[in-house]
């Protein structure tokens, strides 16, 4: 597990879906996610699978920002917030399986390209062995990341 710096994501607690990083490679990140108690859509049972888009986007943001060389934690998008925006989703497929807000799930993002401040990723979300979503994402990062 890779420690996640407290300020790695600019989101407040109700929207901070990533609880820890499971694996981090040069071009790939897998995060463990959970729906926070005060998540705006929490409280009415199962959620549509597309809600997992936010977790994959947060994972992609962490991947795009990258680790700081020599640092033991992932600084992510720490600093002035917000620094990253989801600007496009393509070829998204949502499972008919609902997202269980009581359970954990994983969000994986794979770097697919970068053009200036726009980062392209492929992403997936899984819960209990079932695919929730698969999509291509584009993020706009106001800062160009650390060293990547």
């Amino acid at each position, binding site marked *: 597990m890779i420690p996640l710096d407290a300020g790695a994501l600019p*989101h407040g607690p109700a*929207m901070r879906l990533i609880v820890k990083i499971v694996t981090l490679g040069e071009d790939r990140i897998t995060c463990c996610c959970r729906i926070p108690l005060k998540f705006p859509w929490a409280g*009415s*049972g199962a959620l549509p699978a597309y809600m997992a888009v936010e977790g994959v986007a947060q994972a992609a943001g962490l991947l795009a920002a990258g680790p700081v060389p020599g640092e033991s934690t992932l600084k992510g998008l720490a600093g002035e917030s917000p620094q990253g925006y*989801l*600007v*496009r989703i393509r070829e998204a497929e*949502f499972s008919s399986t609902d997202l269980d807000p009581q359970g954990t799930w994983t969000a994986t993002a794979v770097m697919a390209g970068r053009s200036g401040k726009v980062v392209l990723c492929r992403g997936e979300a899984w*819960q209990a062995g079932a695919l929730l979503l698969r999509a291509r994402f584009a993020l706009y990062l106001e800062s160009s990341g650390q060293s990547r």
Partner: protein
Amino acid sequence: MTSARTGGSEKEAALPDLDSVGVSLANYEESKVLCRATFLLPCHAALFRDHFPGQPLMPAIGLLYLCDWMIRRWRGGNVRIATLRRVRFTEPVRPDVRLEIELTWRGSQRLSMVARSESGEHGSGELCILAIPRQEAEHS
């Protein structure tokens, strides 16, 4: 209303109502091929909560939720968003806005979507919907 994981069966996820996320409906109209709704998104709306502290913006899933809410009202509660062919989020949605979303039926389960306010276009795209068998939806 589904309240528990269904192990992969196709049941309809409950969708929180607009009140629960602090959104109100200002206008709604539908026809066979078009659905248009105007939502009021006040600064205290829950869907801005913690996204981001001090600089609230509606998350992308907020727009998907509003589209989902419209689709279920328009096409029936047993319908869900299955795919997004492409969706662009052109301009962030900030608090205290009247957001108009227009869905146009393109046939074969396809819809086009445009979201706009007086400040311009916030998003657009194409999505496909899936009808859940009525019996399963009623049991959920």
